[in-house]
């Protein structure tokens, strides 16, 4: 049985995984719903191939519909990951839906690195003990069950916000780094000096993630349309996410002009993040060599550029993001796993770290 090395970022909003056997990063929205056997039989008739948009899992004789497929059949489904991650079936399915796609093999040994937000640090060992196990499950398709047996031999767990330092070029990893991870539920900030986590009070910060922004976006949308025929009391999580990601809100076929709202919520969250960092860790930032930021929200060009400009104006240091900032944590976890488990496989796939970019260069690249 083959040994596989992987990093999986199992967050509140997304599950993302990368291994030495996968040709690409696996990315899925973290929607999981338990369904009946009959529903699973019906839905599986439309699944011709296994991919991120077509994951239906049978585990322990129960059936789970995952990711985009879940939203297709159950558009108002809620995200279910809470802080009780150990022994949480939805968290396990989130990990298995990605792990199963990390190799075409039906059976494999997995050497895995996962991450946790700072506030769940105490859960680290319990999470490791729970995941270090053999998991047998199936992906369901029109052609029947594709059985998977994933033997998780070793697990390591590091702070999510620590992981992106491994996406930096090797000569920059041991610098004094301010890492900012803007996740869906949590925003973590950590100062790391030559791999050591700075422990002074205020140097590690847990704040609200993009949920902060979505709450405000919902309030603004409810207010804007309260006097119209389009008035709504609330908006689903996925609708708010998609409005923000696409920077577009359609009612029927009509695109609504919400640019003022988007501008307002982006600037509000920018200020929230910037002042959280400055007010808590400002005194230590004078020593920082590099700022590195990760999280899907940084795919928004305005947000990324403005945040970079704010920190550069204040500290005059490079502000770096991965080309796809949403994948930075998973990529960092995978890079850590390659270092940690390099002896477990003959050839390790060293991911090219050239896909990190400094914000100074963005204008040049885009120009």
């Amino acid at each position, binding site marked *: 049985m083959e040994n596989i090395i992987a990093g999986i970022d199992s967050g509140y909003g997304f599950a993302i995984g990368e291994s030495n056997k996968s040709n690409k990063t696996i990315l899925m929205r973290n929607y999981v719903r338990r369904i009946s056997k009959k529903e699973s039989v019906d839905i599986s008739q439309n699944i011709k191939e296994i991919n991120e948009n077509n994951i239906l899992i049978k585990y322990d004789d129960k059936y789970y519909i995952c990711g985009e497929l879940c939203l297709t059949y159950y558009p108002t489904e809620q995200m279910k990951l809470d802080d009780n991650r150990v022994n949480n079936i939805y968290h396990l399915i989130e990990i298995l839906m990605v792990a199963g796609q990390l190799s075409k093999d039906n059976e494999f040994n997995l050497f895995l690195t996962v991450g946790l937000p700072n506030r769940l*640090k105490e859960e*680290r060992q319990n999470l490791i003990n729970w995941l270090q196990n053999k998991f047998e499950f199936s992906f369901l398709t029109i052609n029947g069950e594709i059985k998977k047996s994933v033997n998780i031999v070793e697990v390591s767990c*590091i*702070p999510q916000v*620590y992981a992106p330092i491994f996406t930096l070029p090797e000569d920059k*990893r041991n610098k004094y780094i301010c890492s900012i991870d803007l996740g869906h539920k949590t925003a973590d900030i950590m100062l790391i000096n*030559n*791999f*050591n*986590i700075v*422990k002074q009070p205020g140097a590690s910060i847990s704040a609200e993630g993009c949920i902060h922004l979505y709450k405000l976006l919902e309030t603004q949308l409810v207010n804007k349309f309260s006097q119209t025929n389009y008035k709504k009391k609330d908006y689903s999580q996925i609708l708010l996410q998609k409005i923000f990601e696409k920077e577009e809100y359609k009612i029927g076929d009509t695109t609504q002009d919400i640019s003022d709202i988007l501008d307002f919520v982006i600037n509000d969250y920018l200020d929230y993040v910037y002042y959280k960092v400055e007010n808590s860790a400002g005194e230590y930032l004078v020593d920082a060599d590099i700022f590195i930021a990760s999280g899907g929200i940084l795919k928004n060009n305005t947000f990324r550029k403005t945040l970079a400009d704010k920190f550069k104006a204040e500290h005059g240091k490079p502000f770096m993001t991965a080309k796809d900032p949403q994948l930075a944590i998973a990529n960092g976890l995978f890079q*850590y796993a390659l*270092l*940690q488990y*390099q002896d477990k496989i003959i050839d390790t796939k060293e991911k090219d770290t050239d896909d990190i970019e400094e914000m100074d260069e963005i204008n040049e690249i885009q120009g």
Partner: protein
Amino acid sequence: MKYKDRIVLSFYPDDNTDMILLELINNTTSKRYRSSKIKDILYNYFKENYKKDFEIIKKNIENSTETEENSINIIKNIKKSNKDTINVVNKALNDWNEE
């Protein structure tokens, strides 16, 4: 060790040349070392009669062996450096976890 190529020699009883060669080889070495004996003869023959080609090929092969050794050393050094890094990282993470 895995061989790169293999040549099988067949000696036919109705071919006098084959039989002469076979008997000479068997008389000058034990069965187990016949292939080494044949290689020695070929080596000396090419060294004497194809001097120029022999030297060029010899040089190329020595260089490529050195390059291969260099690659092996580079990989060894990378693995050593990775181990050093992960030891520093894990010590830092343990300090953080035990806090």
